[in-house]
């Protein structure tokens, strides 16, 4: 078989719906047999803190958390997988997650604060750029 293609994504946003999109697209590429690396930086990295998924706001109509509650209900009603399930699947299919160490310093996030079951590597932009240089598809979320 030919060498599988690679996808790299920068997850900069900490909005629930955007992080969800990143994981959905990531799962899609993995399902097609591609390799996928997500680089979580800035507000995106905050969602990888413990309870980060449940605390992430909506990008629109958040209404102090009320919108988020409504979306959770609708996701359940329409049998859409939760962010937790999507992240789990992403890992099960071999997806890779890099946590940005510069953001960790900037926002004072320590390794034990992060979901160590999800993070594969801790690195700077250089690590991301090396991965990205060797990949064909690049997305910024």
């Amino acid at each position, binding site marked *: 078989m030919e060498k599988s293609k690679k996808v790299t994504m920068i997850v900069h946003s900490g909005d629930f719906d955007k992080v969800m999109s990143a994981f959905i697209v990531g*799962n899609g590429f993995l*399902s097609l047999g591609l390799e996928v690396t997500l680089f979580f930086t800035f507000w995106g990295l905050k969602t990888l803190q413990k309870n980060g998924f449940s605390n992430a706001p909506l990008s629109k109509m958040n209404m102090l958390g009320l919108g988020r509650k409504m979306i959770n209900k609708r996701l359940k009603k329409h049998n859409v*997988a939760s962010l937790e399930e999507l992240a789990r699947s992403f890992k*099960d299919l071999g997806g890779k997650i890099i946590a940005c160490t510069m953001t960790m310093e900037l926002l004072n996030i320590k390794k034990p604060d992060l979901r160590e079951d999800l993070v594969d590597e801790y690195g700077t932009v250089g690590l991301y750029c090396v991965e990205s240089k060797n990949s064909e598809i690049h997305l910024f979320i």
Partner: protein
Amino acid sequence: MIEQITTVVDCTNENCPMPLVKTRKSIMKAKDGDIIKVIGTHPQSFDEIPLALDSLGKKIIDKGKTDENWYIIFKV
């Protein structure tokens, strides 16, 4: 002759992208030559799973729709 189905993947009532993800997971667990049957109800998954199987180089043996669901049978 109809080949023996090794694994059935039930995605009934599951929405995008889980039927696709479950199909991929079943392939990762399977051995070469296994026959997998995926069953689901989400209409668009019936269209996207064959695209993924094509990308993975897996051959579809049969696919179709019944009143309750759709099915896709392929060889790993």
